[in-house]
């Protein structure tokens, strides 16, 4: 059933920009349209591009914020989230914890 929703209605996670729009909902309680507009501006793409995997696959690699395919050298996990926090201007708890562990 999860796949049915993913195909029918969802943004597509890290295939596109779904994780980034979700972060704005969670970090700033933004409704969907406001979150999409905010992320599109930060990524310098159109709102329509946010769910376009052709556009977003390349844009995510350019920004090095994590891509869905297994690309050697591309930012993974916490590395990607540290860059996403800077890009979106939001606090990500596990990134803050990493900074704390490093004394930053």
């Amino acid at each position, binding site marked *: *059933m*999860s*796949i*049915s*929703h*993913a*195909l*029918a*209605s*969802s*943004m*597509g*996670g*890290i*295939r*596109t920009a*779904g*994780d980034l*729009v*979700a*972060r704005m*909902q*969670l*970090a700033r*309680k*933004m*409704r*969907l349209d406001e*979150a999409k507009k905010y992320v599109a501006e930060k990524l310098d793409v159109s*709102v*329509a591009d946010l*769910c376009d995997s052709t556009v977003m696959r390349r844009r995510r690699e350019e920004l090095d*914020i*994590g891509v*869905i395919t297994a690309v050697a050298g591309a930012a*993974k*996990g*916490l590395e*990607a*989230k540290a860059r*996403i926090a800077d890009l979106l201007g939001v*606090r*990500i*708890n*596990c990134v*803050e*914890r990493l900074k704390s562990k490093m004394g930053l």
Partner: protein
Amino acid sequence: MAEIQTRMGDGYSVFMSGEEIREDLVAGSADAAKKGKIPVLEPDELDYLFEMFASPSRIWGVERGHEAVVSKDGSTNSLYSAQLSSGVGLPLSREQAFRTFERAFGFDTMEVGHTDYSVKPAKPIVVLEQNHVEAVLHTTIIPVFYGFMPNLGLYYQPDGPFPNPSDLLPKGQIAEARAATEEALEACYTDVVWMTGKMAEVGADGINYDTTASTGDGEFLATLRAVEWTAKNTDLAVEVGMAAECVLGFHGQLEYRGRRLAGMWPHQQMEVVQEAGAHVFGPVVNTNSRRSTPWNLARAITFVKACTKDAKIPIHANVGMGVGGVPMFEIPPIDVVTRCSAAMVEIGKVDGL
């Protein structure tokens, strides 16, 4: 007009005329409007639903550009757990299942939770739960929730220490039942905030209080107070997903900030959840297995639209087995799941599912 194939609320196929579909759409919306004292769906919204159900297409979807965010309750157990969670029993760890949701299924967020999904059984193994959350936080990119059910029912005898209102009420012991609820909800609240604090310690992105108010108004009050605590004391985002469309009044007199909780419908639940400080609200509208999917979906969307109209926080409607118009069957057919999914976004105007 040729007959249209759709589903009943138990998942079985049914053939209906166009006129019957329209009648069910109108009747479903009217039923929600009457119960919730909210507006019925507009004619153009009913037209959308009719055209969607009339289409012979196997699957349906939102218009390009209208995609919404997905969050998930029940954690990754749909992959590794058993039939009790509609699980398919894959030999995967929770970390593997989480990464599968991220990389293979393209989910926007995901959740870690204990297989026995209530806070009470999860509490004794909290350090294990923290380690699973830490592991996915290190290796994945999408936001990570930890989820559980407050499940006040486990605090009553025979599972817990407090007298059971379900035993006391039939005997007419109303004062004793109310006292038991008040004591039990304090214990539940204490466990929920303790577990929540542990997930804040390890840096989770959010906490999901799922199936909230499954034991009625006492559980809802404990959860609302936990949301307040979490918003005040942690950096966690809080999602509150409900158990049912109407809050049962096992106590009947409990209030949150002057509002009686028993009998609240989804749009009223949203208001108190929002006021408590939550980041996401997940309304539930139950499926009637004896009515058609057009009836159930129109009814569900009418309730949900009343939430999204006034909400200041994102609304992620529950559209799983037996809720949000989806049939009450462990393998809901994709023809109606995709229709319920898309219509909840297009007409219900939800921010996520």
